């Protein structure tokens, strides 16, 4: 993956900043002139956090809410389809003092959906709100090196860091960073503010259209500030109906029969069917999300490094799982970050499949046939391939004399044991699509809530802080490589494979850019049908 690097102190001004990057970068020779109007019908696999849009100021919501939020709200900067940091509400920015200060020059005449101005004061209010909430805002850990913010003038906003540090990757790509909502609306709706998202984005949301577990409606924002290359107002679509279809099979049938235009996620095991389906476009890219089996290092057996290396290292046949469960569509993965993530390093040779070596390690730790290691793997039934992967893993564990018990539970019960109580020995999940390794670092620090695996490594913490203090992208690459090796060395994070992500839509859907789970933008999407 290529990514334009940012040189410290450089002023990055997009020449055509008033135009959306999606056109300026790609062009539309193939798609023809966009048609206006129409309703895009979309299927999501789950409801959007019960209709709550917390602007990342509360606990983590699901992916679906990011993908709705990024059509209602804008950020200061965002990612292009090439994953470069590009202008959004900020038309340009300056990095001063090697990352000590960041100055953003905002677009003028941008209005929120409620008609109020989106100026430096409004942006400042959003950043300050996030900083004030502190740890209560789940993205705060990415921004805790911010010292304060300033509204320099109506359209100039400044962030002052505690020390020189990198900021743009988190703002542009980490789960939407700090989405900018209308301060007036937040104050107006009081406690119900998160049910009334009011942003500057291409689509508006009305809570009265929302039917829990069934339908989310987005409508065209006629006053959207971005224009296409011909100077036409965006977005093209009048309306987007997001239906909640939980069953992957049913969603697939709906796509093939044309009841929906866009399927947010295709089960990787259904790919051969979708590939053959007529009139359907299938999108994918190298994995950004890993399939993880978390080992709880707080308690036996995984508090013992030898057992971690035996079970999560040499005794785990990653290749077999990739080949069988994902039918060769996933990458066997030892590194903490999957191949699609920036600065990935292939370190699979650190743990080749070697059952004898695994058995030797188990023996060294005092385990043999008479005293086998026993542990429980908890998994949820969100994705059908979890059970397949776990079953295959169980048979691999038997080969090294380890007894593994599978406990399948529904997602809320699983989340409670894994996220809240840390009451597990091993837990399986495909976990978080990433821009870079720092996005994962919420789980690296001892004592934080999101340290699900029980990390306690000064070396990792030090390397992570070094990454954050480094503004130069080339230097960050080296640190990312060091981090990957450090994690694998002590088997602090056990990935099985990448978790491949597939999205599909009818071929009359044009102007959509697949962003591999990071975003689902529809501002330039149009329907090529009568």
């Amino acid at each position, binding site marked *: 993956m290529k990514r334009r690097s940012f040189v410290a102190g450089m002023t990055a001004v997009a020449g055509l900043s008033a135009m959306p990057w999606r056109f300026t970068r790609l062009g539309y020779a193939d798609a023809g002139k966009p048609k206006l109007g129409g309703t895009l019908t979309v299927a999501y696999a789950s409801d959007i956090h019960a209709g709550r849009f917390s602007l990342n100021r509360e606990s983590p919501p699901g992916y679906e809410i990011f993908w709705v939020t990024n059509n209602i709200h804008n950020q200061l900067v965002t990612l292009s389809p090439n994953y470069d940091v590009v202008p959004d509400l900020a038309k340009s920015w300056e990095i001063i003092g090697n990352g000590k200060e960041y100055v953003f020059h905002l677009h003028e005449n941008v209005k929120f959906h409620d008609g109020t101005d989106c100026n430096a004061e409004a942006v400042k209010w959003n950043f300050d709100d996030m900083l004030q909430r502190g740890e209560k805002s789940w993205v705060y850990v990415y921004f805790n090196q911010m010292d304060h913010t300033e509204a320099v003038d109506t359209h100039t906003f400044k962030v002052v860091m505690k020390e020189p540090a990198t900021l743009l990757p988190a703002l542009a790509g980490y789960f939407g960073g700090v989405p900018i909502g209308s301060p007036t609306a937040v104050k107006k709706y009081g406690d119900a503010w998160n049910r009334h998202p009011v942003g500057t984005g291409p689509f508006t949301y009305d809570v009265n259209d929302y039917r829990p577990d069934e339908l989310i409606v987005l409508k065209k924002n006629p006053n959207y500030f971005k224009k296409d290359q011909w100077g036409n107002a965006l977005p093209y679509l009048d309306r987007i109906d997001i239906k909640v279809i939980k069953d*992957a*099979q049913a969603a697939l049938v709906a796509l093939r029969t044309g009841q929906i235009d866009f399927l947010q996620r295709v*089960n990787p*095991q*259904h790919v*051969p*069917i979708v590939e053959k389906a007529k009139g359907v476009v299938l999108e994918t890219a190298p994995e950004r999300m890993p399939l993880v089996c978390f080992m709880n290092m707080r308690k036996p057996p995984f508090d013992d490094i030898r057992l971690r290396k035996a079970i999560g290292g040499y005794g785990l046949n990653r290749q*077999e799982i990739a*080949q*069988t*469960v994902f*039918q060769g569509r996933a990458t066997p993965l030892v590194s903490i970050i999957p191949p699609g993530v920036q600065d990935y390093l292939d370190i699979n040779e650190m743990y080749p499949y070697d059952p004898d070596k695994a058995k030797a390690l188990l023996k060294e730790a005092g385990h043999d046939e008479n005293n086998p290691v026993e542990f429980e793997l908890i998994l949820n*039934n969100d994705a*059908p391939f979890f*059970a*397949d992967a*776990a*079953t*295959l893993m*169980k*048979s691999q564990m038997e080969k090294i004399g380890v007894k593994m018990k*599978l*406990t*399948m*539970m*529904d997602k809320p*019960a699983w989340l409670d044991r894994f996220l809240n109580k840390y009451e597990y020995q091993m837990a399986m999940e495909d976990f978080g699509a990433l821009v870079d390794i720092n996005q994962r670092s919420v789980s690296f620090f001892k004592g934080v809530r999101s340290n699900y695996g029980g990390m306690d490594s000064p070396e990792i913490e030090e390397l992570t802080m070094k990454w954050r203090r480094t503004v130069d992208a080339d230097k960050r690459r080296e640190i990312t490589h060091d981090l990957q090796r450090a994690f694998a060395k002590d088997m602090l994070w056990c990935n099985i494979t990448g978790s491949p992500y597939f999205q599909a839509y009818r071929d009359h859907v044009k102007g959509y850019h697949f962003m591999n789970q990071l975003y689902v933008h529809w501002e330039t999407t149009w329907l090529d049908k009568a």
Partner: protein
Amino acid sequence: MTIASRSLAAAQDVAAVDVTAPSHVRSTIRIIWRRLWRSKTAIGGLFLVCCLLATAALADKLAPYSPYAVDVQASLSLPSKAHPLGTDLLGRDVLSRVIHGSRISLYVGFTSILLALFVGVPLGLTTGFYGGRFDLIAMRFMDVILAFPFYLQAIVIMVILGPSVNNVILALGIERIPIFARLVRGSVLSVRENPYVEATQALALSPLRVLFRHVLPNCMAPIIVAATLATANAIIVEATLSFLGLGTQPPTASWGWDLKQNLTFLEMNAWIILFPGLSIFLTVLGFNLLGDGLRDALDPRLKQ
């Protein structure tokens, strides 16, 4: 059971004659069997149930492979000589899994009904026979259980207790208690009015003896029928809960779970979901036909 046999039972107590395998019992069974035999559908049901019992009992001998034997080279293969019903994603033999799946289904079906009978029948007997405040409270409690939708209640219990086969049994058992309790209570209400029950009162027999020796045998017909039909239902519920991932845990072979897990491959290899589904269908059909046949055979009003 006929009026004659009822009064005979009472007469036995009166005479205090202890006869093992009394002739009236044998003759009653013979009558029921004859009626059952006349119904072709009931015999069909009985045949299916017997086949199922034999399959479950001889699963280890019948299955060509272990239901857990993973063979990734043979992933999703079509039916062949080596794998008559094909293999699933992990290369496990579908025939072996279907055969072993019968064990889980029957185990859940029978034990959950036994649990419900064990609690429901004594409850129905006592409440029906004695009535009063205890009856009132117990029956309202049963109403509360019955008031909730069946699956909702099962899912709630499974979520609270955690998914496992034994918890499915517990959930099903709890939900079946009111059905048996009410059924038995209803029968007892009519049975207790009979003169032979009055006779036992006159003889001052112990309450347990009256309930279990004179009242219960005369309520057996509806219990047998309901238990047979409820077994079929329990098998479906187990399959449904497993389908939802709340029942039998992988990798244990369960028809419901296999159906769900293989559903993904419906269009690539329909065989692998056909047989778990067919097994559930045949099993439930067998129990239902048998249950219907038994109802007809045990109903004295349908005597020809």
